[in-house]
């Protein structure tokens, strides 16, 4: 049975830190290029939701039987973060939601596990990561934030494969090159040379074994990327692959940075988006061993239009001052607004209102068509009682009817930009805007909904929807 990729997307957050900004402040650190920066209202769960939404949007009728979320920087421990992704995607309750967590390798591992189980149904593999380190550290500059999602399925008329899984290999080894004690923010690394001496042979071993398993020679590989937090080792492995000139793909290190758990899938998404039908695409991930995954794009690739390509998202980014980056990452603490912090979310209220809070599902009066956001039992027009149908607006384009900038309200990153939206298909909702410059907002602007973390109180994250400008050519509707 042929198994492979039925849908795929990457998510690159809007903000960029120019690495030169680090040296400008500290006199040291930084480097060339830029890294992606998750907004203050994003975490691995919300970025995973965005990647998953993009992946599913381009595959009409996709019905995953399971959603897996892999990250080394989960929003919660103990509690399953994939359940939040599941709710935001409005998946039925019989869809399993599992976290793969802790180690950077869990992203590649989750994807390989899903690919290696033909007949196990359709699985949405979501990976996300937030990478940083202390100011001026190599991790701060080399790291990036992002997510990727791959819809793994058996080939079928309903879910034609964009890329068929040809095979791969995994090799494992125990050595301490990079580690982070449980509960700590900062990763630590051993002397760089030591890791390199382990990763280079591990990468070569996986490359050789994986190509053999896939029935390929290096010369038959059209696109390949080597990923890993050990940048020097990844470059050395890439140099030794023996592939044709031009086959080595951009690993996004100069524009996005290494997004850790998410990175193998993020570069895979970028490669599949750029590949034509019939190309061999491979990704080799170095993390406590090495994983090689090989694919061949199919004829169905030609009929597939990505919702928003990684390249478009990379190009649409906007710079963030280094000070904002440091405050968003909790490295510095600016004076908060002189307003009370919000109270923790009521779990029981959130649970009752799951479809609204996580799915942005309102209600539509069957007799008058009036759309209610949030859902209402009694109609605002005509007063019909309990005669409503659920109506989802998370994927609807909104138009700004009016807006304001609140410089006094509590926000983890003031000011709050707030707009009254009218949705295509009906419905009005006043909502916070994000990934936006206050000066750039106008009445009549088109915006799309995005799943965000509003704040955290008593350790409970308040997830809900905001709106952001529609930016990329394909991202508008």
């Amino acid at each position: 049975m042929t198994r492979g990729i039925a849908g795929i997307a990457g998510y690159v957050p809007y903000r960029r830190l120019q690495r030169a900004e680090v040296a400008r402040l500290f006199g040291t650190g930084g480097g060339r290029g830029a890294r992606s920066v998750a907004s203050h209202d994003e975490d691995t769960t919300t970025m995973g939701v965005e990647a998953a939404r993009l992946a599913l949007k381009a595959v009409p009728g996709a019905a995953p039987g399971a959603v897996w979320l892999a990250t080394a920087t989960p929003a919660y421990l103990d509690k399953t973060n994939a359940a939040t992704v599941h709710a935001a995607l409005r998946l039925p309750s019989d869809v399993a939601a599992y976290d793969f967590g802790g180690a950077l390798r869990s992203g590649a591992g989750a994807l390989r596990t899903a690919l290696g189980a033909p007949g196990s149904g359709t699985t949405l593999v979501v990976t996300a990561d937030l990478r940083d380190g202390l100011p001026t550290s190599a991790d701060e500059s080399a790291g990036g934030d992002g997510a990727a999602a791959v819809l793994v399925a058996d080939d079928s008329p309903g879910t034609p494969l964009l890329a068929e899984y040809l095979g791969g290999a995994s090799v494992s080894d125990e050595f301490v090159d990079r580690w982070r004690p449980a509960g700590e923010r900062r990763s630590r690394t051993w002397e760089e040379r030591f890791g390199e001496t382990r990763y280079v042979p591990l990468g070569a071993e996986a490359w050789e074994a994986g190509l053999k398993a896939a029935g390929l020679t290096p010369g038959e590989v059209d696109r390949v990327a080597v990923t890993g937090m050990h940048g020097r080792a990844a470059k050395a492995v890439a140099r030794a692959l023996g592939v044709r000139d031009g086959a080595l793909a951009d690993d996004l290190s100069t524009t996005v940075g290494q997004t850790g758990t998410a990175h193998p899938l993020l570069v895979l998404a970028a490669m599949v988006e750029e590949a034509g039908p019939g190309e061999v695409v491979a990704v080799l991930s170095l993390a406590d061993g090495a994983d090689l995954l090989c694919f061949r794009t199919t004829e169905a690739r030609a009929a597939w239009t990505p919702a928003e390509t990684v390249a478009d998202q990379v190009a649409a980014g906007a710079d963030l001052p280094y000070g904002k980056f440091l405050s968003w990452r909790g490295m510095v603490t600016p004076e908060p607004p002189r307003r009370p912090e919000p109270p923790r979310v009521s779990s029981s209220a959130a649970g009752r209102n799951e479809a609204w809070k996580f799915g942005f599902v309102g209600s539509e009066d069957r007799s008058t068509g009036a759309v209610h956001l949030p859902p209402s039992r009694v109609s605002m027009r005509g007063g019909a009682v309990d005669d409503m149908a659920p109506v989802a607006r998370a994927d609807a384009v909104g138009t700004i009817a009016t807006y304001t900038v609140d410089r006094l309200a509590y926000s983890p990153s003031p000011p709050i930009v707030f707009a009254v939206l009218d949705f295509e298909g009906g419905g009005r909702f006043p909502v916070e805007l994000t990934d936006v410059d206050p000066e750039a907002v106008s009445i009549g602007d088109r915006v799309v909904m995005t799943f965000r973390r509003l704040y955290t109180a008593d350790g409970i994250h308040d997830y809900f929807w905001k709106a952001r400008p529609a930016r990329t050519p394909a991202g508008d509707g």
Partner: protein
Amino acid sequence: MASHGIKDRVAIVGMGCTRFAEHWDKGLDDLIVDAATETFASAGVTKDEVDAFWFGTAQSGMSGITLARPLQLEGKPVTRVENYCTTGSEALRAAAYAVASGAYDVAMAVGAEKVKDSGYQGLNAFPIPNDGTARTLTAAAMFSMVAPAYAKKYGVDEDELAGVLARISWKNHQNGARNPRAQFRKEVSVETICASPRVAGRLGVFDCAGVADGAAAAIVVRAEDAHRYTDRPLYIKALSFAAGSGSGLIDPDYDYTWFPECARAADDAYAQAGITDPRAQLAMAEVHDCFTPTELVLMEDLGFAERGTAWKEVLAGTFDRTGPLPVNPDGGLKSFGHPVGASGLRMFFETWLQLRGEATPERQIETDRTLALTHNLGGYPGEMVAFVSVVGTELG
């Protein structure tokens, strides 16, 4: 379905009002005792002669005990009232209806709020456990959306409209400067108002009401008994209240240029009082100027100006203290600040002074009209409660 009103059946026979200020040295109990003591003296009664009490506070305390304890009321019916920023008006409405019904001879409404003990700027709502999806905007931000919507609808340049709003603020500070009970007693130039730091949208600090502690109170009796207590009672002509359904927030037809709840309450109040031309019949109006665009739009909602023309009337000085219809001659929320539970009764207090000729001479309105209006709102554009009253010195 009917709104009959209680025109001329109930009279206010005594009132009191503290200075509104940052009363760092006074607690809620002090404010209550001060306002109540002044009011008992004003009506010439003791607390034992009052049969029932309604106490308005938004969030300075719960239950009637919050009033009964500081005043040491023993066994009286004391009810705490809350209805957003109309809380003070709502207390008087309840007391007046209680007297009109015949249930009591003498009833008292007390409104008080101790805002400045929170340690934060502005007003901050009581957190009620919720699902975390509700807006967390300030009131300033919600009302700031009115100005650009109004400018767009009526073709007013936004910079020109900013000047109109500044003039409203200027006017209310002019009036407040002449009022010993106001929080802010300085005139402020239009230039200073326009240059003040932005708070939300284009609204600056001087477009916003202040924040203060305060208390005010009134004693009401049946109209036929009024002259037992005072030679110059204020007869209640209308008490109207409208709560919106909140649908303005989610209804694409709402355009943020008016407050339907306020227009509805005004229509009802005028019907109760028999007023056909408020601009020509009213001696003055106290309105809820929480933010300058609010007062602008209210001039139209209350029928003082045609739709789309209030901005011109403001510039023409129509609502100045010496204009054809003085609005907020006491300085309004702008000069008084907004101790939520007290504000509605503070508005009544100004009608009590002005219609009886007891305002300080430098702000006493010269008029032969005998009717005055108070307007009090709570909530936000799209989700609002609105109160309108009319009082007068003559029966009939």
